[in-house]
């Protein structure tokens, strides 16, 4: 099945569950989409939407986040667009070393690495007017599912 599903939500964390539900349901319309790939998509979308919500923390509670799901012949593309202040994706710290002695000192920083490893393509475009994250997951994986982020 092809088509587009658009969600326009307030930038609030209590809408995260709804976003995951709708995206997973949209993906499930395609019978060849494997369940484990839909599970990966749910996490990736949750990570991107969490970042979008947090980017609005200092803005008006009326701000909106738009999630656009494009159902293609062989893939789903999900774009998460916010109106936050933006960031430089190339300046992100690498994911923390899980075996480092100080690993428990680092609570955050796993969202974008997880998003990248769980999808076939993850593109981040960010400016001072907002951030758009585009996630692509093919019905049939382009490569083996990885077992580590780094």
């Amino acid at each position, binding site marked *: 099945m092809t088509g587009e599903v658009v969600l326009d939500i307030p930038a609030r964390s209590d809408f995260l569950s709804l976003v995951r539900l709708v995206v997973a349901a949209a993906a499930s319309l395609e019978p060849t989409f494997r369940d484990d790939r839909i599970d990966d998509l749910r*996490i990736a979308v949750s990570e991107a939407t969490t970042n979008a919500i947090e980017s609005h923390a200092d803005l008006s509670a009326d701000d909106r986040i738009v999630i656009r799901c494009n159902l293609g012949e062989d893939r789903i593309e999900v774009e998460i667009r916010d109106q936050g202040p933006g960031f430089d994706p190339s300046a992100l710290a690498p994911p923390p070393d899980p075996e480092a002695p100080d690993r428990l000192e*680092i609570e955050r920083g796993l969202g974008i690495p997880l998003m990248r*490893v769980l999808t076939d393509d993850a593109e981040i475009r960010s400016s001072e007017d907002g951030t758009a994250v585009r996630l692509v997951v093919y019905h049939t994986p382009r490569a083996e599912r990885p077992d580590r982020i780094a």
Partner: protein
Amino acid sequence: MQLDVDIAVRGGWAVVAVRGELDLATGPQLRQEIASLVADGHRQIAVDLTALDFIDSIGLGLLVAAMKRVRSVDGTMFVAADDDRIRRPFELTGLDVALNLVPSVEVGVGTST
């Protein structure tokens, strides 16, 4: 989506059983529950995620913070999960080792000291 957190003390372990979805909306509740257990003197914490439906990096992060808190008082903590959907984010990030991920509370109690 609500997060249901049930706490039971069994054989010296405070078992924190979590149902629902663990994310930015619900994470603070679990963070507070574990912090309260440590503040009340509990030193053996079992986080039971075998009935959890979803976890993302926010959930992982709060468990990292919980482990740090438990260790700071010379306590012990493990996380139990058997569903691949829940185990996968731990394994992808390497936190299965740092957070003592085991398949069940029974296994965790049997192997933790």
